[in-house]
């Protein structure tokens, strides 16, 4: 990719990352939430991969770590739900009691910001893994047959 694209992407990816984190954490006060924020965070990594090539992304997140982050997201979602069951007796119960004077604050959401973060981790790792695997397999033409090579 050309120099202009590389420079612009290098500057932009930090901003997009912060913006994605903002949408995830403020998900219970403004539109957004875990899904939208997670997809935006995945777009950051895809942007790095499109602009700089596969080598740079392989230094940051190899595939094992991507799968690990996705599993951590899923398991933490489940563990928060189980903690609700264990503490209050109903599955998924919102067990952090909220102070009624404290509305419209970050900390007034109870378990909802934690859920948002877990979902964002899961969605981000999953979508980035899919794009990574889709783009590192390439088809090369050998004589008559087409052979698929994983780089």
């Amino acid at each position: 990719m050309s120099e202009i694209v590389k420079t612009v992407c290098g500057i932009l990816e930090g901003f997009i990352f912060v913006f994605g984190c903002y949408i995830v954490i403020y998900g219970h006060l403004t539109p957004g939430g875990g899904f939208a924020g997670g997809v935006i965070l995945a777009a950051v990594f895809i942007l790095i991969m499109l602009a700089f090539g596969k080598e740079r992304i392989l230094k940051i997140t190899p595939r094992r770590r991507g799968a690990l982050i996705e599993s951590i997201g899923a398991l933490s979602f489940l563990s928060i739900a189980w903690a609700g069951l264990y503490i209050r007796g109903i599955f998924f119960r919102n067990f952090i009691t909220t102070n009624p004077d404290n509305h419209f604050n970050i900390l007034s959401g109870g378990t909802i910001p934690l859920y948002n973060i877990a979902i964002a981790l899961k969605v981000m790792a999953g979508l980035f893994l899919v794009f990574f695997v889709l783009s590192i397999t390439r088809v090369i033409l050998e004589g008559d047959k087409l052979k698929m090579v994983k780089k």
Partner: protein
Amino acid sequence: MTETMILSLLTLMILGSIIALESKDLLSSVIAVGAVGFMLSVIFLILRAPDIAIVQVVIEILTLIILIRVTISRDIHIIGDTREFLPFAMNLVLLLVFFIIAADAIRTMPEFGTGASKVALPYLSRGLTDTGAANIVTSVILDYRAYDTLGEATILFAAITGAITILRRKAKND
């Protein structure tokens, strides 16, 4: 006013999708689908659903990136688009029958614009005090209906694992 806006955008979307399906060049089909998706996001904004509009825009961009990455880097021959005449005619008849029956079924539904919110009134009135979240949609998907979100996470996991398993192979042809 909003209704005319929605209808005109919907007509544009139908035109765009017909262009996407009929055009001979794959790149212009993919771009047309992208345009349809962005128009859909604008319709979501008109329908007062900002959450959905954000998600739709970002996912539309990712879909475009995946499609272009897969279809353009391969060598695509231009192949004839529609099937032979007899299956094509049968398909058209089938689609016409489906369209007539479904339009009849839709006509019996309540009118556009009356909210079907008998279920959602308790969520709206008690959402803030029960959960402490000002965004009622978030409180619905993460507190009142968190089981559905768990199911959705499971589906994402299964689909992504399936995609990775399909594409993971060493350079061997079997």
